[in-house]
């Protein structure tokens, strides 16, 4: 079998393209859904926090968080069935441990800094979540890192420059940003 150098070049480019797409697709399996669901929770929760007050906020946050957890788990399980891997369980355990450690660190940081106000709790939790996502993106090729870095800068700007509108800023920018990133991953891969 003989082919021209041009055909060989095209074939190698195709192999590289498919290989990259496969790696990213498998690594990001479910990441888009998780980002969109988290983004929706933040969008609804923070916009409500900006305009409402009192016990109803607790019910809203608990309600949307539980709903989000249920939706993300169901969709994640459905997507997980697309690939069968003898090592998938071990990888999932390691990822869960990373998030667990991050949450322990987050709760410890809040407890050590206590008493702190709602804005400070919000920004600490949000920064931990985005940092976790950036770490996952770097290690598992989930998504490009730059949107997360831009998001962190914008969130910090909102925290320091727009304290009165901080929750609205977080809802639209934080929540909207995660939804946009999830949508970007879904449309690209």
């Amino acid at each position: 079998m003989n082919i021209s150098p041009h055909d060989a070049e095209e074939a190698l480019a195709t192999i590289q393209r498919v290989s990259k797409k496969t790696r990213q697709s498998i690594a990001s399996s479910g990441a888009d859904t998780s980002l969109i669901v988290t983004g929706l929770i933040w969008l609804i929760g923070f916009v409500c926090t900006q305009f409402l007050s009192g016990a109803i906020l607790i019910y809203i946050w608990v309600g949307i968080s539980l709903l989000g957890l249920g939706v993300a788990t169901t969709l994640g399980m459905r997507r997980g069935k697309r690939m069968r891997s003898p090592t998938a369980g071990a990888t999932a355990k390691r990822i869960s441990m990373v998030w667990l450690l991050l949450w322990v660190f987050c709760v410890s940081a809040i407890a050590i800094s206590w008493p702190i106000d709602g804005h400070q709790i919000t920004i600490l939790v949000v920064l931990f979540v985005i940092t976790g996502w950036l770490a996952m993106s770097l290690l598992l090729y989930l998504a490009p890192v730059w949107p997360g870095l831009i998001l962190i800068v914008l969130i910090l700007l909102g925290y320091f420059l727009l304290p009165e509108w901080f929750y609205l800023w977080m809802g639209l920018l934080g929540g909207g940003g995660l939804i946009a990133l999830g949508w970007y991953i879904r449309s690209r891969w």
Partner: protein
Amino acid sequence: MPELNEIIHQPVRLRIMAALVTLEQGNEVDFTYLRELLEVTDGNLGAHLRKLEEAEFIAVNKMFVDRKPRTFVSATPEGRKVFEQHVAALEAILKRK
């Protein structure tokens, strides 16, 4: 000297093999997932998978998951070896250019 493989060189089969050898050895993907990944039709993918299975470059594993029939596909060690040789042959052609 590595040799090109006629079965693998066909464009759809080349993409199938590129996707499957990217997976870790022992991992297998669902037929529907592969179809969406490669943007091909059911019939087209099925025909090319049969060809690769006949050549023993891939393994097709049919089973029931949640009482629904599912087909999982993976590259065999032989398929991985032949694909590596095919890539080496393509690179050799470029080096000779």
